[in-house]
């Protein structure tokens, strides 16, 4: 599903080249779940932004469903995201002036789906927010907001789901609920999940874990190995 070859990202700051990611190679199969683990500043978010096509690599190749992101401009990558990718963010990234329903409908509408409202309602029902569809983000708790974000991410049935510290802003109990929801839906839909976290426990719930340190990726373990 995702193929990464010799990926590097270098930034130039005050005439000094700063290597954020160095020669990253990675393959993720369809339906697989992968956790990218690393300390703060290790380059996790940069890697996620490159894998999801949010940013452009300095060197290397990224293929999603066979489409080469490195050959595309921003609009081309946006089209790939629309077709294949879903997101769940640490800070939920809901639009504050839209209701829960409108937030979930947004990606469907961008795809031109004429049945957006029905689908969004179904997904809000699935994440347990049937009665809160007309609430705005500031009227929802953190856990509820993340559930809206999960509904928004899954409603387009993406091939690839990127989750950036999805429980980072939540308390332990709510975090667990959200984790369960995320993995359950992922399993149900057979979505490929790529999750960035520094939480070892959460990472262990994924089939594979890779470790990122100073921009260098090392494959640490996989569920099969653990088994």
């Amino acid at each position, binding site marked *: 599903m995702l193929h990464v070859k010799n990926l590097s990202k270098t930034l130039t700051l005050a005439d000094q080249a700063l290597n954020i990611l160095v020669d990253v190679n990675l393959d993720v199969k369809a339906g697989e779940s992968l956790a990218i683990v690393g300390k703060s500043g290790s380059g996790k*978010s940069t890697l*996620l*932004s490159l894998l*999801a096509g*949010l*940013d452009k690599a300095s060197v290397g190749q990224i293929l999603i469903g066979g489409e080469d992101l490195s050959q595309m401009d*921003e*609009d081309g990558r*946006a*089209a*790939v*995201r*629309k*077709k294949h*990718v879903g*997101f769940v*963010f640490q800070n939920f*990234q809901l*639009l*504050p*002036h*839209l*209701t829960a329903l*409108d937030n979930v409908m*947004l*990606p469907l*509408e*961008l*795809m*031109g789906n*004429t049945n957006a409202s029905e689908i969004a309602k179904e997904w809000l029902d699935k994440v347990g927010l049937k009665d809160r569809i007309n609430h*705005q983000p*500031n009227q929802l708790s953190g856990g509820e907001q993340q559930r809206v974000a999960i509904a928004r991410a899954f409603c387009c049935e993406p091939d690839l789901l990127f989750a*950036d510290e999805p429980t980072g802003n939540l308390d332990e109990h709510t975090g667990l609920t959200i984790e369960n929801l995320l993995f359950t839906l992922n399993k149900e839909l057979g979505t490929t999940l790529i999750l960035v976290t520094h939480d070892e426990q959460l990472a262990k719930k994924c089939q594979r874990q890779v470790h990122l340190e100073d921009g260098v990726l090392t494959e640490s373990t996989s569920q099969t190995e653990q088994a």
Partner: protein
Amino acid sequence: MNGMQLIILSFKHWLNDLRSNEKRLLLLATLLAAVSMSMISSFGDRLSRTMQYRASELIAGDLTLFSSREVNGDYLSQAKAMGLNTSSALGFSTMAYANEKLQLVRVRSVDEQYPLKGYNQVADGFMGEIDGNGEGKGKGYLVKASPKPGMVWAEERVLQRLGVKIGDTVEIGDGVFTVKRVLQQDADRSGSLFSPFGRLLMSKSDVPQTGVVNQGSRIWYKYYFTGSEKSIKGFSKWLKPKLNKAEKLGGVASSQNNVGSALEKAQQYLSLASLISVLLAAVAIALCAQRYSERHFNTAALLRCLGASSVQVRNIFIMKLFYTAMVGAVLGSIIGFILHFWLLEIVADVLPKDLMPATFLPVLMSMISAAAVLMLIALAPILNLNKVSPVRVLRRELAPQSVKANLFFVLAVGIMVALAYLLTDSIKLSVVFVVGLAILLLIYGLLSAVLLKGLSSIRFMLPSTLKMGLIQLNRHQYYARSQVAAFAFIFTSVALIWIVRGDLFDNWQQQVPDGTPNHFAINILPDKKYDFEQALKDKGLPASEFYPMVRGRLTHVNDVNVSEIFKEDEGPNALRRELNLTWSSVLRTDSKIVDGEWFLKPDEKMDTHAVNAMLKGSEKISQKMVEENGYANNGISLEHRLADELNVGVGDRITFNIAGTPLVTTIKSIRDVKWGNFEPNFYVVFEDGVINDFHHTYINSFYLPVTEGQWLIELNQTFKAITVIEIDQILKQVRDILSQTSMAVEAILALVLVCAMVLMFATLLSTLSLRKHEAALYRTFGASESVIRSRIRSEYITLSLVASLLALVSFESISFALYYFVFKVSWMPHLSLWVAIPILALCSILFSGYFANRDVLKASPRQLLQEVN
């Protein structure tokens, strides 16, 4: 996503966005721009059209054409083709005969349509005559009619001298006519009131019967036109290039009276006021749009992240802006239109009952203008959203590179110039005004940065409030600079509007102050002058000076006969009739010498009587010799427009023929004369002593309260040879018009102030989220409400003072430039404003600030943090 889905999606987002302060502010600013434009332009449009209409009553039409020959028939057919109503008059001077008495009269023969505008003021008897019911027969009333064939209406003095009464007949040439009414005021008041011959109005169809108008007769034609403003403008534009030198076009604005000039100034003021209110709104829109754009970086990033293309993101935001423009502009224009009725209600007492109907054009123009102002000003920051990187969803600190705003800036300036042109009708004024203001705003931006930096460097010397305020402002330098610039702009505009208004009012007040003469007395013979003067003094009436009047014809310019200089029927009208000449040793206070010098005082020159006697008595002493010896040389002062028409200046010689005696004079000065001041005015003033020995009568003007009608009758009976002309009606009309105009100006000033105040509020709100963020943190760290309140207060006090300082410096610079370069008068700093503006700034900013920050002060830290996040 197809076009329709995009329209629906953006509309839905736009509706949801209305919950945000930024969007509401943007909408509010647009709405206000439209409200003020629509209200002021609808109000101003109706008022100015009504004032035009009323003023046009004084010249009996919207447009007049004067000619000494019958005009080309095409003119009239074109006027008719353009839907104008026309009326014409034929004028000539002739003798009227009755009871074996002859009297020279100035006849205006008119068609049935006359007067197209206004009224003739007539009476059914003479002043002092009493009818059967004990009522005064001389009481005037207004009629919208002209004499029927066979009838004439004549001034009382004509009838008195001929010894005829209403119902009697008079002979004019070969025709015999019945006197039907006494003519008190002709509907066309543009002619001289002080003609020694009385006026007579008759039907044009009777002219052939008189046989007095033949080839070569000295006659004049006047044509009157009325119609829609557009048709009048169109016809005037069509006609102007076709006119020859003998044909003169006249209208309300060009009529030589104070109504025309007051109206023109009032219109300019109304236009300026509405332009300033739009500019105030435009500045607020720019501030709000910038903030709105920044607040939507995250939305744009999320949309990109979810797969929207840059074109889709751009289109969504442009559509949202378009909805704001449409709703703000349409709603605002309609509200403005409704409010203009309220504005009219306020000044209803002074408004004429027959107010011109409202038209949709000002509303439509306001809609388009407000929408265009928003779209062009807000588009540059909104297009920034298109450049937001989707990575911002992960790294908030990423801001897009600014779109090059130059093109939009140029476009915005362009639309403002177009708007200014619509409002002022002058491309030069519009360009100067708008480009000047754009430069001024840029300078404000730079100066506010310098001022804030300068004050910060000496903040240890400042009181603690200002110190704290400066720290606060310097934390958000960009916003601080914008706000200082915006407030400085607001206060400069208000100060300018205030000062211009004061100048306007002073100007009008001077034109018809209380006690302005409402009667003219003419034909006062020198031996009756003292008695008449005494009669006025005994009654305690304020009167003007007694001006001597000598009738004379201007015959030569620099010894060349005027008939050789100007072709027949060309040249100034003053050449075709006898002029009223006067003499004076003192320059009137309301006249101004524009070239040369006023006559020397008696002790500074030779005895002019002696010189005159020498000139008259001795042929050996030539004019040249007198000049060479520095003696007085029959000096005159000439009115500047006549001087321009004759193409003469100081030092040139003018010859007059007075009662058959040629008199060579030298122009000593050119004078600017205030024609609209209701006092006797003269084209030519002689040096005292030059024409004193010629036959002369005196003229003066005096003020008589309306309640003293009986005394006037007695005066008429005592001084039968003296003619008293009442101009109460004219004065009343002028006063009414000026008073309406003044009220309108006051109302519009108040409106601009309200606009400025509301926009100020909007400007303060634009930094509300920043303030909330800060307050949330302070409150979380334990700061009390009073600490936050005092921080905000000190920031606003500093903001007020810095903005007022900048406003005052720029206002004084602008007023200096205006006074020194435009009005060419001495400049004085406006000290009262140095007190008023800072106080106004402090009060208004603190007042607006209190309302803008209520949420910040009252909400709990948790609420604030939640809102900020």
